[in-house]
Structures are given as structure tokens and as C-alpha cells.
């Protein structure tokens, strides 16, 4: 965090928010879950409090209870004083009065948090009308324009009549913030406000939030799992785990000297841009060897299109990409959503048809290839999918899932041999062999991704394609999966295409990095080259936008960013 809130004098007054002994329980099929367990927090005027924690730590539940937005299955006790009013047990009109005017919320998914079928001004007006039934349409529109101007939406007077889908994700999040502003909320609860956004947009939204606080003295509770975001924005940090606040400290203090073991682990698990570049960890001889290894994947002028509907032109997802992956090399492909990175991975695995250029995979030209010829290729390629929850057939056991490639490609294997092989792999991915009999839904996300890795590796592939394998995982889990990946790659020496939106993650794993922008490869090279000496402005911007989990360094980077790209937008 930057200098401690310069604009507003904290003052001795009542804190904006005082949570005391908050306790929330949910009823689930598995019995009662104690989601929040005796949490106490305060937020002063103008303070940005970051609540960090991993899935299930209770941070979101805490945030939602501030607005009394808990589902009916939940039961809360304790007290949440918002400017002096206790929200717990509050209902009806008094709760509604409080919502919006005193405390407002910014949601994780801006697309689903805006009603798709009403124009923006109407949606903004609903909050205003709720608090002032006599407000006229004219007043609403004026207020909406004012608020949209404040959050930097261009042309607000014209665009308040637009519908949410006509705005980009970042703009939608700005609109959400504008809504909070229009109501004059003194406390904004931002629940993972940037998680769904690309990193460059994230930087803009973070800047906006900071600006809001500076200009209006708004207090913000920032719920996030991203330590970079915390380092960038927060004044104070509360670390939550299993429903409890285990540590609370000013941001610099926390990053500099975390008191709790868990906090330390959490911080350690966060990949730090440029700290541990995979290429740099290789010995020169290894680097040399990689440089001359034969390519397993070679793309030249690769074009991939999605057919258009009803005679519309095709959508060109990949526009002439050249890249090659050498044997034993990990190639990291980075890009924001819609850049075509996943498409390239799928094309290499034979899941998409190529429309132009050439793509040779393990010696086979994929352009116009017949399904028959792809099949032998498949036993030499492994694929790890992004979402471990959906990439397993829910009706097959873990053992059956892992054995599937064996069933298809190694028919002569006996059942016992297959079992042995499965256990061997489970062991390799550090899971107990007994997990073989379990069903995917009985495993945690990290465990499933390990199984996914095991399945990809069961046939000993020469090439592994990993499509955002850790983006659905918590940081600490991500770290262990990445470690596992790294270790297995070193041991087995397969070539890999590692696809991610997170430069920091890619850097810790990939020997070479390619940066994709709207279907074009704008930059490619060894990790340190790309990160330390980016050639393309987009790469530079990408790097600059990525917050690092260190408040001091991040403050410096932010200034540099502002210098290079302007304060905002």
C-alpha cells in the first residue's frame, strides 16, 4: 500500500464498520458448516481493508453478512455495526435503508451482477429510488451521469441508455462502482472485484478504487485471494482461515514480517514475477541442450478459424502464429482472454482444425489431417485441462479415469497391470493409491488436478499440453501443483506447452515464453529476456499491470506504470 491514506484524516470517530464476534453457520447436505467463526474486524473511514484467504476461509461470507446478504440457509450471530447500526438480525425496511446508502457492494462477476435486460441508468436509478421514492427520472439520469463520469466511463450521457452487454468487463465493474458512488455509500464491500478481469484491466480497476477512496474518503473492504492485489491496494490486511481471522496487520508490516505460519506459507506460495525464472535455474549445458533439441511442435503461419453462422464470416482466433516447442522444453504461452492461447493448445492436441499455415506435431502435419492419423499421435500427447472439476467423468472412479488411456491404447494390458500402473502414477503425483476407488467429486480441486496430471502422463507422452492447469486453484495449492509439474517434467523430460494468463506462473515453469495478443504472437523468447527486456508495448504493459506481492515494490511499479501509461486508462 502507498502512503497511509493521505486524503482523509482517520479521526477518532466511530469506525465505519465494526464486526464483533461474527459467527455464521450454514446447513448443507453434509451437516452444518461453521463458515465464520468469531470474526471481529473494524474499518475506519477511508481505510482499505483487505480480507485475504483461500476458498472456504469464510472471507466472502463475512463480506456478505455486512450487507445482510446471507442465504436463507445461513444463520448469523454476533454483531456487525455499520455506522452504528447492527446488521445482524436486521430485516425489512431498516436493512434496506442501510444497504446502498451506508454500505454497498461490488461483486466478483460484473457481467452477472448487472441485470442484462435493463439499461444502465434504470439499474442505477433503482437504488436511488429505493432510498428516495420521490426522485424523478431526470434526477436519476443526472446522478447516473455524474457517477459514471466519476468512474471514468466515456460519454456517460449517451451511454446510460445502453445495456450491460454493450460494455466491456472492466467498464461493467466501473459501473458497479459508480452505482455504489451514486448512492453515496461510505463503505464499499468489494468481493474479488478483479478476479474475473484480465490483468491489464485489473490494474485500472484497482487504480479506480484507490482514486475513489482518495477522493471521497470511502472505506473499502476488499475481499481477495490475490496477494498482488492486496499489496497494491490495501492499507490493512486481515488473513482468514477456516472462518477465523488469524492475523491482522497494516499491509507493509504483514508482508515484511508475517506473524503466523500460515501467512508465511501463503506469501511464499505466491509466484513473484522474475524471482524464479525457470530458464535461469537451468545450467548452461542444459540450456544449450534445449536450444538444439529437435522440435516436437512446429507452427508456421498457423491460422485457426471458427466458422461463422448463417453465412457470416468466420471468426479468426489465431492469425498466423509461428512457434516451435523443442523436445524437453516447456513453452509458456501467455495472453489475456480471447487471445487464442487455448485455441492453439487445442489445435496441437487435434481438437481444433487448422485453417491455414502449417502445424506439425510430433512429425505429423495437422492441417487437413484425418482422424485416423491423429489417433496414434494421441498416445504421445497428454493434456491437462483448466477446470479439474469438469474434466473428469463424474461416473468413473479416479482409477478408471487414469486407466482410460491404457484401455484405449494399451489393450493388451491385464487389469492387474493396469491397476499397478495407476497406483504407480498416483504415487508419482503424490496421492495415496487408495484414492483409485474414489470418485472425482470426492477429491479437492488440487487433488483432481494431480489426477489430471497423472492421466495425462500415464502413457508416457512426449508432449504435454497444460491449459491453465492452476487457474482454478488456490495459491497454496497452485504452488504445490506447479512444483509437482516442474518435478515431473524434470524427471520425465517431456516437452510441454504451458498455457496461462499469469506471467508470474509461466515464468516459474517455462523455458521459453510466447505472448499472444488477439491471435498474434507479439513476443517470444526465454523467460528472462521477455520479462526483463520486453520489446512489444503490450508485453510491457502486461508486465507492468501485474501486481507483485510486495507493497513496497508494488508502489514503485505503480508509479512507473503511471509514468509509462498515464494515471488511468
Amino acid at each position, binding site marked *: 500500500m502507498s502512503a497511509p491514506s493521505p486524503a482523509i484524516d482517520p479521526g477518532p470517530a466511530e469506525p465505519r464498520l465494526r464486526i464483533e464476534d461474527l459467527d455464521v453457520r450454514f446447513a448443507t447436505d453434509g451437516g452444518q458448516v461453521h463458515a465464520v467463526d468469531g470474526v471481529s474486524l473494524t474499518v475506519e473511514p477511508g481505510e482499505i481493508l483487505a480480507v485475504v484467504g483461500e476458498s472456504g476461509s469464510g472471507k466472502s461470507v463475512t463480506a456478505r453478512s455486512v450487507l445482510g446478504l446471507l442465504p436463507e440457509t445461513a444463520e448469523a450471530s454476533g454483531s456487525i455495526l455499520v455506522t452504528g447500526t447492527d446488521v445482524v438480525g436486521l430485516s425489512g425496511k431498516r436493512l434496506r435503508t442501510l444497504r446502498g446508502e451506508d454500505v454497498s*457492494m461490488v*461483486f466478483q462477476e460484473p457481467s452477472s451482477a448487472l441485470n442484462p*435486460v435493463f439499461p444502465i441508468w434504470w439499474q442505477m436509478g*433503482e*437504488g436511488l429510488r429505493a432510498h428516495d421514492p420521490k426522485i424523478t427520472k431526470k434526477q436519476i439520469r443526472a446522478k447516473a451521469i455524474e457517477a459514471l463520469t466519476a468512474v471514468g466511463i466515456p460519454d456517460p450521457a449517451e451511454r446510460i441508455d445502453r445495456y450491460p452487454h454493450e460494455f466491456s468487463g472492466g467498464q461493467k465493474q466501473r459501473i458497479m462502482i459508480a452505482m455504489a458512488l451514486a448512492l453515496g455509500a461510505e463503505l464499499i464491500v468489494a468481493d474479488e472485484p478483479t478476479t474475473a478481469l484480465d490483468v491489464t484491466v485489473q490494474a485500472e480497476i484497482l487504480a479506480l478504487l484507490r482514486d475513489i477512496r482518495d477522493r471521497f474518503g470511502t472505506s473499502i473492504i476488499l475481499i481477495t485471494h490475490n496477494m498482488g492485489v492486496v499489496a497494491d491496494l490495501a492499507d490493512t490486511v486481515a488473513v482468514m482461515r477456516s472462518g477465523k481471522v488469524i492475523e491482522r496487520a497494516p499491509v507493509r508490516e504483514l508482508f515484511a514480517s508475517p506473524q503466523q505460519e500460515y501467512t508465511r506459507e501463503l506469501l511464499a506460495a505466491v509466484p513473484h514475477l522474475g524471482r524464479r525464472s525457470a530458464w535461469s535455474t537451468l545450467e548452461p549445458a542444459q540450456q544449450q541442450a534445449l536450444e538444439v533439441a529437435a522440435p516436437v511442435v512446429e507452427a508456421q503461419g498457423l491460422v485457426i478459424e471458427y466458422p461463422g453462422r*448463417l453465412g*457470416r464470416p468466420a471468426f479468426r482466433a489465431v492469425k498466423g502464429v509461428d512457434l516451435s516447442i523443442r523436445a524437453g522444453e516447456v513453452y509458456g504461452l501467455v495472453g489475456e482472454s480471447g487471445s487464442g492461447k487455448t485455441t492453439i493448445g487445442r489445435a496441437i492436441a487435434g481438437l481444433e482444425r487448422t485453417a491455414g499455415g502449417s502445424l506439425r506435431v510430433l512429425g505429423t502435419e495437422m492441417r487437413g489431417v484425418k482422424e485416423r492419423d491423429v489417433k496414434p499421435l494421441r498416445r504421445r500427447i497428454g493434456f491437462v485441462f483448466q477446470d479439474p472439476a469438469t474434466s473428469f467423468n463424474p461416473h468413473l472412479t479416479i482409477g478408471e479415469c487414469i486407466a482410460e488411456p491404457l484401455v484405449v491404447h494399451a489393450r493388451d494390458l491385464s487389469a492387474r497391470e493396469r491397476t499397478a500402473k495407476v497406483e504407480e502414477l498416483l504415487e508419482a503425483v503424490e496421492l495415496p493409491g487408495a484414492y483409485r476407488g474414489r470418485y472425482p467429486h470426492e477429491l479437492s480441486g488440487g487433488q483432481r488436478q494431480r489426477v489430471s496430471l497423472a492421466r495425462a502422463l500415464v502413457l508416457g507422452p512426449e508432449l504435454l499440453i497444460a491449459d491453465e492447469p492452476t487457474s482454478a486453484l488456490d495459491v497454496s495449492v497452485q504452488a504445490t501443483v506447479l512444483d509437482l509439474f516442474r518435478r515431473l517434467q524434470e524427471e520425465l523430460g517431456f516437452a510441454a506447452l504451458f498455457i496461462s494468463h499469469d506471467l508470474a506462473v509461466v515464468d516459474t515453469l517455462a523455458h521459453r515464453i510466447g505472448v499472444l495478443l488477439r491471435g498474434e504472437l507479439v513476443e517470444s523468447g526465454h523467460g528472462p529476456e521477455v520479462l526483463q527486456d520486453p520489446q512489444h508495448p503490450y508485453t510491457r504493459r502486461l508486465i507492468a499491470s501485474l501486481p507483485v506481492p510486495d507493497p513496497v515494490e508494488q508502489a514503485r511499479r505503480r508509479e512507473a506504470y503511471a509514468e509509462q501509461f498515464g494515471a488511468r486508462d
Partner: protein
Amino acid sequence: MSPDRSSGPDPEGATTQVAAPSGEDAPSTPARREKRTGGGLGRYILVRFLLIIPTVFILMTVVFFLMRITGDPITAALGGRLTPDQLAERRAEAGYDRPLFIQYLDYLGGVLRGDFGTTYSDRQPVSRILLEYGGATAELVLYGVIVALLIGVPLGMIAARVRDRWGDLALRVFAILGYATPVFFVGLLLKLVFSVGLGWLPVAGRISTRGELTMGTILNPSPFYLLDALRLGDLSLLWDVLSHAILPAIALGLLTGGIFLRLVRTNMIGTLEMPYVDSARSRGVAEGRLTTRHALRPALIPIITVMGMQIAMMLGGAVLTETTFEWNGLGFMLAEYMAARDYVAVQGIVMMLAVIVAVSNFVVDVIAALIDPRVRY
């Protein structure tokens, strides 16, 4: 399944609703995104209408052969009194002894020339049948839909609001009873109570004989009695027409209303849990308004799609209602003509129904587009 409950507790309705109001799709399939934007309305309409042709053609073919392998109209009419020779002679005269395929080509030729023929059994031009009975059915369906909407939408919203409480349970059981009770059974009960018992409402038909006579004086009568009654400005006639419509409308409306109720409830529950409702709630919007304004309109999009199909189905499907209440509509006449093996009439009606279904599909899309700003073709 009985047509009156065409898509009864529609299995698809049930499943499509589940995924319906979700936001954008994952960006991994840009093609799907593409569909939402750009492109011309004219082209879209054209393609939609061109797609009707194969559907109609398939139906025509299927109906022709199905009808003809089950017998010809002459045997249907005179099988009980002519000698086999006389029958054969008459069949030959009508050309029914020719190979089926030749007859089919013959019929097809007529259709291509725009000649749908006249019905065999009562010599009515098919176009006229469509107008007359189509009008009657349309009127019945209109009433039915009004009742169904009056039942389904508000009660569905209430059920969604009080979900999982006793009120919800009562409403749901009511909805299930609505489509679990065969329309002829409901009709019987309604008639027993309101016509026989209380004597308030007429038993059957669209209008009394006297009303019919008055109606006969109107120039250029429309197929819609209500319209004609209004044109005449005769209040007793209007009541005459309306009183005849009440029981059929209730019988049909209860059935469809039950389906609508369930549909509205499911979708409302879905949208009430959407983040944007929470988002509006977090800005202090009252619960009632959340239901009636914020959640209703997005929920309506899938509802309208299913309802539209439902209504299209009702047009041809209200056989049981029409039979129970002597309401001479398309479905009822279709059953009649089918029994008479009058395939000319059957073809014509079925073709019209296919077109209606296709057109209503299209209309539904347009309405959905008007409500949903995301869909713009």
C-alpha cells in the same frame, strides 16, 4: 401424450430452464458469441422461413402415407353398405386404386400449384376450413392463454417468493393437479357444477342458436365471435359469446396454467438467485420490487420461449377441450377428418399447424429479443 397437455410438464422445459438465464458463455467458443451480434434481421427471417419448407414437406409426406395406409375416404364413408365391387368401382373413380406413389406425386403437384384441394368428405375448400376452424381454435386458445397467464404468472411468482413453504406446496400441488387431471374430467366436473348444478353457464358450443342467428346478420363475419359481437355492439350477444367461452377457457387454462405456474416458479427461483438480484438488493431495493421488476423480466425470456411453443401446440392440440365443449376447432376437426380418412383436409390442417408452429417459434424469438437486449439479430 395428450395434445392438450402438449408439452405437459415439458421435459425440455425442465432442462432448458436450468441453464437458461446464465450469462455469457465461456469464451472458448467464440462462434457462440458471434451469434449474438451483427447480421441482418432480413436474412434471419428469410432463413427461418426457408426452414419451414422442409418441415412442412416432411409432415406432408408422413401424413400422406400414414393416412393412406390406414384406408381411403370412400371405404370410411360407405364401407358399411356397398358391395365390394361397388366400393372398388368408386375407389377407381376417385383414383385411389393407383399406386400410392403416383397419388402422392399427384397430390404434391397440386400443392405446388398452390391448390390444396377441397376436402373429400364434405367438399369444403381447405382454405376455408383453416379460416373457420382456425379462427375458432385461435379464439379458444386466446381465452385459454389469458386464463393460463392469469393463473400461471402471478401464482408462479408467489410460489417462487414463498418457495418451500406451505403456500408454495399448495400452489405446486394445484399446478400438478392442473395437468394431472384429464381435460375431459375437468370439463365434466365444471359442467356438472356450473351448467347442470347452478345453471349459470351453457354446457357447450361457442354461442347460442339465437346468438348465432343474430350473428348471421353481420356482413363479412370474422372467424372470431367475440370480435363480431363487439362489432354489433350487442351486450347480450357479447355475454352470450363470453359465457360460452368461460368453461372451455377455464378447462384449457387450468391445464396450461399449471404448466405456466411451474415454469414461472422455476425460472423466478433461478433469477432470484442471480447475482444481479443480490446486487440490486445490496443497493436497498425492496424484496417485492426485486421479484416484480428485477427478476421477472430476465425470467420471462426462457418462459416466453416455452410458452410460445406451448401456445403453438395448443392451437392444434386442444382436441380434448374442443371435443368436451363442442368447440369446433382445428384439433377437433382434424380428429374428425382423420376418422373419415379425408387426407386432403388432414394434410391442409397439418400443414397449417406446422406453419403456425414455425411462425410462433419465430415470433417468440422476436419477442424474446425485444425483452432481451442481448439478442439482436
